[in-house]
């Protein structure tokens, strides 16, 4: 919402301070100012000038050569490119040496051989709007040479871009802002006559369903959607450009003047926040107009030139034959006021916010009127706004208003009355307030307060706050806001411990981060949106067709980050992510969600060091990492060789994690087919592990006494055929070794020369120990021999000699 400082002071002369001081006060009241434009400040060099002669430029068809009276002793030759320049009219003019708001300095110039001593300006060049179709023709009495900002009514003006929250429709007008900013609130706000304006001589003829005036029937078919409809007929208007004061007002708030009748409605929109609409009376058919529901499929071309199709739930204003306005949102094209219009029908109505919002969303129309109606327009403000528009139209376009106007008013507004407990105010706000203090804060905003004599105050809510102030707490907010948030102390009181335990999954996530960071991995974050092949939970309104689904696995997103790093020449990439996986549970169900941990690594095992050759990360690094993560995240789960479909891993170089029967993770070497990486990149390894939804607290470990007796070790190298898994031999050894076998380690693997084809040599170290005594060589030898005997029962396995 753009606020003009001059307009604000016009309504509330008591408002003091410059734009910056006001902006600070506004922010403290809850409507911060996003930007301030000093409207006149950069226009000090601009003067009013009269074009005395406008002739063709001898060397250019599109240029005019003008003789200009800029207040000096002599007329100036000025070249002008605007199509609308004409002799006798007044325009803003920059003399040689003057500067435009954009910093451009005007110099004496030869344009196509003719000297130009200055420049006639468009509204855009002056920073007064977007209009660049021609130079700005002034409608002022000011003499040539007088300062433009004075003549145009911009002196001292500033445009404040005020941010208004969705609950404060009442602030979408100058009068609304004035109520908050005037020193005495509502009492300090008035509505002075506009230049040439007079109280319209019009009487209201009130009825509930339909009212006829001047041969036209005005009606409301849907009183729940249209509370009130005022209609007036103004005959004999002269449609044309608005006078400068009106243009200046509109330009000051960034609106484009159109013609005096339309400008009058826009003026009142910005001044009072009440949308109104002017129709060309001659185009209305059937001598009637009213609010009704649209016919399903009915078409209308709105003022923006778009053809719209309406549905039966949408409220429209229609004449005897067709829709002439999408109620409260945008008028129809043919019935709009044009230069040819002489008789006007003026509408001023109140529409229900939800219905306006639904229609405007369905049709996709943004308009100043719709924006205000959906945020609530004062249901008690129609008559004042109606009279104000008539005042402005008659003052600027002439014409005569029919002495009787229609006032269809089926559902008059009843002022809401609320109870406000002083004790509740104190309880919620934490500081004492007496009744007079509460009343003193509310009354300037237009609330009518009866202090009563007990704890409870009675408060009548003004119409413009009827939508957002409906409960006691809404009043308490107003008390706090007007008291000033800055004035509340900030000393902390005691607190009681929360009943909510810290969710254990946060702790697990945190432990896993610590574990992985300690192993040299970096945490990544990626959004959950992925290409269609990577998930089955679809967004119904996706941001892009490239990423319309939510991810099932995290690894693909992580691999894309690995690729990006590799593409930028980063060779050592070790990333992990903790994130959410989504899986469809079928139609009608919310998707299943799971918090998961994913890892993707590639590059060297250790940073380069001068003492040793580089080693690349390989499958065994990933395998060990997976085992460590599973132990921490899912105690009891097993890491087994195995391939999970869709995991992007190499079969034969992949593991699956099982917890009971459930597959809860996978890991291994990423298939080169699933990657787009430079040829120099090493193996990429990845894993993904679902975390339990509610991790059980890890049980306290029970400390065991350290061994009192020494261990004895025996090493053996076994020749093992490829078909026999090491894990099988270890298990066999454990079963044969009995209680004395304390541990088994693999300490070497050899494949190659001197071994039978298809076999390898695995070296094991067996550790024997008794908790009760030092073992004798005999005992150890016996146990070791039975282990050897047992493992040699496996097909093809024998001790290597």
């Amino acid at each position, binding site marked *: 919402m753009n606020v003009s400082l001059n307009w604000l002071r016009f309504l509330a002369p008591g408002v003091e301070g410059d734009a910056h001081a006001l902006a600070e006060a506004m922010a*403290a*009241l*809850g409507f911060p100012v996003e930007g301030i434009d000093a409207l006149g400040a950069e226009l000090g060099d601009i003067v009013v000038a009269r074009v005395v002669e406008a002739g063709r430029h001898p060397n250019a068809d599109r240029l005019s050569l003008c003789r200009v009276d800029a207040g000096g002793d002599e007329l100036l030759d000025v070249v002008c490119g605007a199509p609308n320049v004409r002799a006798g009219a007044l325009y803003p003019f920059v003399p040689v040496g003057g500067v435009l708001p954009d910093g451009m300095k005007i110099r004496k110039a030869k344009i196509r051989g003719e000297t130009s001593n200055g420049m006639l300006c468009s509204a855009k060049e002056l920073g007064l709007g977007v209009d660049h179709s021609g130079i700005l023709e002034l409608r002022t009495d000011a003499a040539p040479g007088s300062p433009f900002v004075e003549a145009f009514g911009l002196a001292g003006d500033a445009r404040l871009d005020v941010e208004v*929250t*969705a*609950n404060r429709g009442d602030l979408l007008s100058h009068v609304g802002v004035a109520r908050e900013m005037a020193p005495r609130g509502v009492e300090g706000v008035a509505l002075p006559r506009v230049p040439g304006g007079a109280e319209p001589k019009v009487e209201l003829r009130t009825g509930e369903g339909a009212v006829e005036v001047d041969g036209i029937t005005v009606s409301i078919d849907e009183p729940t959607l249209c509370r009130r409809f005022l209609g007036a007929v103004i005959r004999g208007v002269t449609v044309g450009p608005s006078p400068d004061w009106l243009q200046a007002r509109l330009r000051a708030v960034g609106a484009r003047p159109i013609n005096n009748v339309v400008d009058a409605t826009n003026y009142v929109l910005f001044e009072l926040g009440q949308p109104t609409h002017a129709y060309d009376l001659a185009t209305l058919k059937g001598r009637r107009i009213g609010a009704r529901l649209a016919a399903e499929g009915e078409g209308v071309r709105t003022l923006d030139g778009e053809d719209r199709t309406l549905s039966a739930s949408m409220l429209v204003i229609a004449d005897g034959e067709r829709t002439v306005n999408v109620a409260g949102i945008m008028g129809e094209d043919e019935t709009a006021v044009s230069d040819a219009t002489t008789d006007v029908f003026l509408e001023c109505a109140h529409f229900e916010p*939800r219905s306006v*919002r639904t229609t405007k969303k369905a049709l996709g129309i943004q308009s100043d009127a719709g924006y205000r109606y*959906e*945020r609530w327009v004062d249901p008690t403000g129609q008559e004042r706004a109606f009279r104000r528009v008539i005042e402005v139209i008659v003052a600027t376009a002439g014409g005569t208003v029919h002495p009787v106007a229609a006032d269809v008013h089926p559902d008059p507004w009843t002022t809401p009355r609320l109870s406000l407990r002083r004790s509740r105010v104190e*309880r*919620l706000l*934490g*500081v004492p307030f007496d009744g007079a203090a509460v009343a003193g804060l509310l009354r300037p905003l237009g609330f009518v307060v009866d202090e009563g004599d007990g704890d409870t105050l009675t408060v009548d809510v003004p119409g413009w706050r009827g939508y957002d102030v409906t409960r006691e*707490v809404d009043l308490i*907010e107003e008390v*706090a*806001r007007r008291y000033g*948030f*800055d004035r*509340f*102390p*900030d*000393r*902390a009181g005691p*607190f*009681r*411990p*929360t*009943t909510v335990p810290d969710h254990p999954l946060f702790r697990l996530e945190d432990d896993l981060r610590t574990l*992985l*960071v300690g192993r*040299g*991995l*970096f*945490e990544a*974050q*990626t959004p*959950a*949106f992925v290409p269609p092949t990577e998930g089955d*939970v679809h*967004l*119904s*309104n996706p*941001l892009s067709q490239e990423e319309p689904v*939510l991810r099932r696995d995290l690894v693909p997103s992580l691999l894309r*980050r690995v690729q*990006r*790093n590799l593409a*930028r020449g*980063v060779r*050592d990439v*070790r990333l992990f992510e903790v994130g*959410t996986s989504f899986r469809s549970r079928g139609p009608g169900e*919310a*998707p299943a*969600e799971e918090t998961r941990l994913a890892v993707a690594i590639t590059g060297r095992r*250790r*940073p380069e060091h*001068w003492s040793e050759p580089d080693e690349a990360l390989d499958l065994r690094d990933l395998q060990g990492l997976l085992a460590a993560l599973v132990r921490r995240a899912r105690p009891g789960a097993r890491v087994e060789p195995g391939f999970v479909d869709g995991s992007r891993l190499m079969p034969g170089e992949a593991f699956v994690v099982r917890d009971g029967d459930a597959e809860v993770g996978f890991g291994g070497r990423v298939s080169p087919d699933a990657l787009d990486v430079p040829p120099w990149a090493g193996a990429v390894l990845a894993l993904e592990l679902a975390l339990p939804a509610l991790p059980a607290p890890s049980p306290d470990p029970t400390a065991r006494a350290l061994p009192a007796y020494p261990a004895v070790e025996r090493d053996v190298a076994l020749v093992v055929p490829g078909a026999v898994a090491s894990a099988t031999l270890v298990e066999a050894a454990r079963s044969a070794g009995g209680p004395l076998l304390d541990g088994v380690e693999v300490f070497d693997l050899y494949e190659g020369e001197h071994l039978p084809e298809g076999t390898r040599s695995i070296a094991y170290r067996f550790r024997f120990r008794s908790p009760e005594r030092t073992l004798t060589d005999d005992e150890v030898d016996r146990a070791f021999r039975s282990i050897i005997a047992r493992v040699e029962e496996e097909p093809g396995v024998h001790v290597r000699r």
Partner: protein
Amino acid sequence: MTDVPSLVKQLDALLAEALGEVSAASDGDALEGVRIRYLGRKDGRISGVLRQLGALDPADRPAVGAAANRVKARLEEALDEAAAALAAPEDAGRALDLTLPGREPWSGGRHPVTRVMDEIYEVFRDMGFSRARGPEAETEWYNFEALNTPLDHPAADEQDTLYLRDSVLLRSHTSPVQIRTLESHEPPIRILAPGWVYRRDTYDATHTPAFLQVEGLVVDEGISFVDFKATLAEFARRMWGPGTRIRLRPSFFPFTEPSAEVDVKRVVTAPDGTTSETDWLEIMGAGMVDPAVLDAAGVDSERYTGFAFGMGPARIAMLKYGVDDLRTFFENDVRFLEQFVPGGLR
């Protein structure tokens, strides 16, 4: 009295005395002093003894000479050893170049936004908050209606929402966790709800359609606007330093009333030690819990009051670490992530 046994005895006594001085010597100069005192050609005490050789029977001279040589050799050896021991560190330095870099393991690091989330949690944990979580795919009820946000109110526009299908959406804030917690727990409630939220925003420097949020909720008897302001002021001081101030500006959120935008002003210290205050920076939205929210969750809004707040750790991370584009946090370029390793890389 000059005879062989007494001279040998004198020599041994001198040796013992000299060895004691050698072991007491703490530097090269002291050792050189010992050498001169005992072995010096002119005044050395051992040399002095040897000068008495002339008084001996020539047949006895070799025995004493041998003893003298033994003593001299032993003392010289001791002096050399002591000198070597004193010089040892320098010798080792010549053998191993200790300026060559050592073997370091890889460094890793938490994501910068996680670091900020951790900090936020630690501050609130110290003020008695625990963490709660909830689903990211939510119903309209939990995301809007239970939070006093009718879908036909313009306030619903401010968070353009991503839907999965009718009435099921990706939560646009973590506030649904507040409702779920109020439904499942009795006050006193002091929780933090960190998590991913989603909005229909296209990617640019200050918007991403998915981002992390941290919200907080306090509900108990007697919680007032003063508690609300005090808690946030304390948070700001602990997060940004004791000189930090907060400013509350009235605002509007459907689920809080009164509502406020919270700005902070930090004190920064320049390299020359002078301090100054930053501009006000908006860091969160907050307010007293609207009674309609408590009622919707089945909490007696006459008996209990509370406050809630929400902030974006990625935006705080931008300010804190001088990152000017939110998208950088999603690129996960290792060279960016490395910059957040505590203590830095070598």
